[in-house]
C-alpha cells in the first residue's frame, strides 16, 4: 500500500525552485532516508509534501483536508519548539489533537497511544517532568514521542537525530525501523550517511532541488555520488553491520557558481 505519492512536486521561493519536479512514492513497511547537502531542498520537499508550503504538481497528502491529513501523516519539524511549561505527558498528548472533538478530554484509546509513545521513547520516568526544563536531547525525544502518539501510517521527520547523543540517535532510528516493521512508513532526512545506510531500507538523494537518486543503499552510496552531490572524498567500507561512510576530505569541484538548478 502506498502512503505518499509525489508527482512533479515543485516548491518555489520567489521564482527560484527549491524543490524541482520531485517525484517519489513511499509505501508500507519502508524506512526511507532523505539525504543531501545543506540547501538541497530536503526540508522544503517534506513541508511541500504535507501541504505546508504552496506547491506545484501533486502530493497525495497535500490534497487531503487538514484533519484527515493529520490522521495520515505525523510531522516532526527540525525546529524543536515547546512554548509553555507543560508536563511531558501533556506535550505527548498533543499528538492526539487531530482525533479529539472540541473541548473533549483524552479517551482510554488516546491515553493508551500516549502511554505507548512514552514507553517507546524511554520516557516512562519523565511523565510528570516539565518538558521545557529538560535538556535539548530529552526534549527532542519528547517531541518524537508526540509524533508517535499521533499514531499515523506515515511519519515525516526532518533531521530527527540532530543534537542527540549517539545512543539516543541509534535508539531513535531503531524505533523508526520498528515502525516500518509494523507496516507503517517513515521518511526522514538525515545527515549521518552511515546511520542512514544502516537503518534505511531505501535512500533518496537530493541535490539542488532535484531528486538525483532513489534506490537501495548499495546502489546509492558510491564514491561517485558522494563526490558529485556532497563534494566529498570518502571511503565506503563494507562491514558486517552494513556500510560505513567515512568522509576523508572536501573536493572543490562545486565551488564554481552553479547554474544547473534552473535547467
Amino acid at each position, binding site marked *: 500500500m502506498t502512503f505518499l505519492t509525489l508527482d512533479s512536486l515543485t516548491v518555489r521561493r520567489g521564482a527560484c525552485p527549491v524543490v524541482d519536479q520531485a517525484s517519489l512514492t513511499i509505501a508500507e513497511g519502508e524506512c526511507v532516508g532523505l539525504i543531501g547537502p545543506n540547501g538541497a531542498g530536503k526540508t522544503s520537499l517534506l513541508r511541500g509534501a504535507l501541504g505546508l508550503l504552496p506547491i506545484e504538481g501533486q502530493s497525495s497528502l497535500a490534497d487531503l483536508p487538514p484533519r484527515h*491529513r493529520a490522521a495520515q501523516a505525523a510531522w516532526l519539524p527540525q525546529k524543536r519548539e515547546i*512554548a*509553555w*511549561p507543560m508536563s511531558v505527558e501533556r*506535550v505527548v498528548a498533543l*499528538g492526539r489533537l487531530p482525533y479529539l472533538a*472540541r*473541548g473533549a478530554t483524552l479517551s482510554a484509546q488516546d491515553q493508551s497511544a500516549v502511554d505507548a509513545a512514552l514507553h517507546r521513547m524511554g520516557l516512562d520516568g519523565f511523565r510528570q517532568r*516539565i518538558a521545557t526544563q529538560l535538556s535539548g536531547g530529552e526534549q527532542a525525544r519528547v517531541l518524537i514521542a508526540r509524533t508517535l502518539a*499521533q499514531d499515523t501510517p506515515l511519519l515525516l521527520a526532518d533531521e530527527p537525530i540532530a543534537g542527540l547523543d549517539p545512543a539516543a540517535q541509534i535508539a531513535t532510528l531503531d524505533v523508526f525501523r520498528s515502525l516500518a516493521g509494523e507496516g507503517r512508513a517513515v521518511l526522514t532526512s538525515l545527515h549521518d550517511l552511515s546511520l542512514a545506510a544502516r537503518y534505511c531500507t531505501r535512500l533518496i538523494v537530493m541535490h539542488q532541488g532535484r531528486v538525483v537518486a532513489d534506490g537501495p543503499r548499495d546502489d546509492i552510496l558510491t564514491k561517485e555520488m558522494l563526490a558529485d552531490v556532497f563534494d566529498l572524498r570518502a571511503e565506503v567500507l563494507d562491514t558486517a553491520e552494513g556500510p560505513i561512510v567515512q568522509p576523508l576530505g572536501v573536493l572543490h569541484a562545486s565551488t564554481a557558481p552553479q547554474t544547473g538548478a534552473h535547467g
Partner: protein
Amino acid sequence: MLKTRAGDGAVKLFGALMVLTVAMFTASLFVGYAAISLPDGLAALFGSGDPLIVTVMQEIRLPRTLLAAMVGLSLGLAGAAMQGFLRNPLAEPGLIGVSGSAALGAVIALQTGFASAFLLALPVSALVFAAGAVGLILLLAGPRGSSLTLILTGIAVSAFAAALTSLALNLSPNPYAASEIVFWLMGSVADRAMTHVWLALPVMALGWLALITLGHGLDALTLGEDAAEALGVSLSSLRLQLLLGTAAAVGAATAVAGAVGFVGLVVPHILRRFAEGRPSTLLWASALGGAAMVLAADLAVRVILPDRDLKLGVVMALIGAPLFLHLIYKTRREIA
C-alpha cells in the same frame, strides 16, 4: 502506577476561580458609599423594598459590577488567547491596536461634543473605531500574514491612534474638555447605566465565543506553527478568529470602560502555572481570573479613597505593574 487524569487539576482550578469571582462579584454589589444590608440589597436587586435602595442597587451598583466583571473577563480571555497565539508571555490584547483605536473613537466623540448627542454616543463611536482598526489590520497584514506582520501592524496602528489621541487633546477647545478626555482615558466603570451593559454585552459575547473556542488550536501551537498546521489546525482561520474575537471583546470593553491595562498581561501570567501550561485551560481560567481581578480593583477604588473618584485604570496599573515585576523576579531564571 500513579496516573494523572487530564482535567483533575483543571476542575480544582475552575472551582477556586469560580468561588473567587462570585465572592468579588457579591462584594462589589454590597460595598459602597451607601451602607445597604445584605437582605435589603438582595431584595432591592429584584425590585422590592425601599425605592431608593432599589434605585441604588439596580441602577448604580448592578451595572457597575456587571461591567467590571465583563471588562475583566474580556481582557483576561483576550490576553490568554493573544499569548497563546504568539507563544509569548509578554503579549497582551492591546498589541493589535484595538484598544488604542477604541480610545481614539471615544476621545474624538468627547472632543467634538458628539458624546453628549445621546447616551451611548461615546461607546458607539469607540466601537466603530475599534472595528475600523481591525479592518485596517486585516488589510495591511493580509489574511495569511505571519504573526510578526500582525504584531508590527498592530504596533503601527496603536502608535497612530495614540498620536491622533494626543492631537485631539492638543486641539481641545477648553481645559474642561481636556480634563474630561484625560479622566475618561484613565478607565472606569463608575456611573455607567444598564444601557452600557446592553450595548457591550452582545458584542463582547460574540468575542468571548470566538476566543474560547480557540483552545484546540492554541494547544497545538505550543509545538510551533509548522507542527500545529500538520496537526490539522488552519492557522489562517485561527488568526482571523483571534483577531475578530479580540476586537469584539476588547473593543467593547474599552468602549464602555476606557483604557484598563495590565489585566490581559498579568492574569494569564499568574494563572499559567495553575493551568499546567495548557493554553486551552488558561483561556477560561484567565477569563474568570480577569473578572475577579477587575472586580477587586474596582472594589479597591471605592474602599481606599471613596471621596476622590480614583480611576479603575490607575488602580489596575498600580496593582498590575508591581505584580508583574514580582512575577518576572520569581521566574527570571526560567526566562534567562
